[in-house]
């Protein structure tokens, strides 16, 4: 069932207000855990907030004025995608808005004249090519199990989705590494002190623009972890535990692997994750009569 309008609007507003706080905190804990894994003390947990507040104090050096609008569009569409998701909207529309927001980031990077920024933009496009099919297949898999694309209905369904979609879940975790910009797939830009070719897609964004990109990432983090929740939606406690475990595994992978070439990223995302997803969907289709979904 789809919740009524006030609940949905409330959930969307709650997401828009709380997601940056939660996302920033997640990044702060991430940095702390990463530092501990490397035998360091690490920055304070609130460091991401200090970083963003500092960036707003800096001068905004802009190469082309259009950059400002592209960056703003990135933030707005990311927030819209997440708000649609948390208000129980159509999963396909969420994915559409999510992809569109990344296209704006790529356009913003292409808008400068720096070759480093262009390389970053190209790599961001390659990453979009790599993860996009998996995200759509995740939605398709959830449709096959719950017979609906509406997040509200998937989240309230009592079916243990993870039991039917283990392959898709692993495939989603693989693309989650790409989406969280973690090693070995942090091609276009990277978090923490890692360096890309200069700074990849964010090379030519300074001060407030970089802060907006950072806030968009926080929105994105909360949305992506929300998708992990859906797999375990039959039991909220297991779901939250699953999010924590999944994120910890991502940090572990980040710290134990080195960056790979873009070709390998594409192959991993399409051949390994893609095969897992398709086999999972095939088996599900074949057993449809037996499972009585």
């Amino acid at each position: 069932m789809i919740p009524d309008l006030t609940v949905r609007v409330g959930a969307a507003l709650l997401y828009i207000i709380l997601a940056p706080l939660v996302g920033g905190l997640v990044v702060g804990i991430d940095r702390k855990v990463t530092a501990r894994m490397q035998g360091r003390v690490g920055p304070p947990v609130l460091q991401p907030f200090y970083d963003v507040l500092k960036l707003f104090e800096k001068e905004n050096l802009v190469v082309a004025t259009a950059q400002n609008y592209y960056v703003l569009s990135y933030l707005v569409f990311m927030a819209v995608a997440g708000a649609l998701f948390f208000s129980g909207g159509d999963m396909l529309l969420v994915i559409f808005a999510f992809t569109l927001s990344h296209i704006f980031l790529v356009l913003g990077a292409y808008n400068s004249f720096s070759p480093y920024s262009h390389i970053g933009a190209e790599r961001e496009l390659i990453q979009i090519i790599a993860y996009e099919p998996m995200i759509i297949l995740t939605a398709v898999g959830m449709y096959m199990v719950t017979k609906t694309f509406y997040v509200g209905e998937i989240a309230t369904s009592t079916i243990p989705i993870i039991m039917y979609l283990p392959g898709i879940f692993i495939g989603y975790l693989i693309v989650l590494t790409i989406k969280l910009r973690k090693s070995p797939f942090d091609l276009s830009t990277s978090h923490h002190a890692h360096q890309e070719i200069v700074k990849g897609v964010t090379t030519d964004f300074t001060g407030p623009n970089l802060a907006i990109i950072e806030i968009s990432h926080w929105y994105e983090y909360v949305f992506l972890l929300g998708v992990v929740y859906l797999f375990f939606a039959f039991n909220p406690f297991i779901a939250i535990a699953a999010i924590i475990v999944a994120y910890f595994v991502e940090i572990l992978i980040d710290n134990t692997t080195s960056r790979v070439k873009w070709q390998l990223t594409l192959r991993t995302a399409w051949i390994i994750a893609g095969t897992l997803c398709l086999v999972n969907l095939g088996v599900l289709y074949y057993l449809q009569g037996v499972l009585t979904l």
Partner: protein
Amino acid sequence: MTYLTKSPWIVHYDCSSCNGCDIEVLAALTPVYDVERFGIINTGNPKHADIFLVTGSVNEQNKPVLKNIYEQIPEPKVVVAIGICATSGGIFRECYNVQGGIDKVIPVDVYVPGCAARPESIIDGVVTALGILAKKRQAMQEGGSTTPAKAGEGR
């Protein structure tokens, strides 16, 4: 209240240094000193940086590069000259191709002498630079000009 002092990001440029000071700069990022405790990140991108660390003396070849990187850093910004070569040209001072310390080309806020400068003194220099950064931010808010700071203000 400024958040600049809580999250100073660094860009490091090697101006014909012997690499001694560069190794010490990078040593500050290792687990032993771990400057990320103070939110310090080595960005490698001047457009994201607040503090410009320069090692080595300046010559005709890298003079435009040094100037270019300096100009790409958004305001407010501070420059820290690390090692005696960046401070005054050091033992290379008399060379036909060496111009001298980096303050011949860009305004320097803090000098960290030493050959090579110890990581402790580099961190101390950066902390001194943070105070100057906060002052520059205040001057920016009051609408004043932030550059150039008086040479030799730090030490």
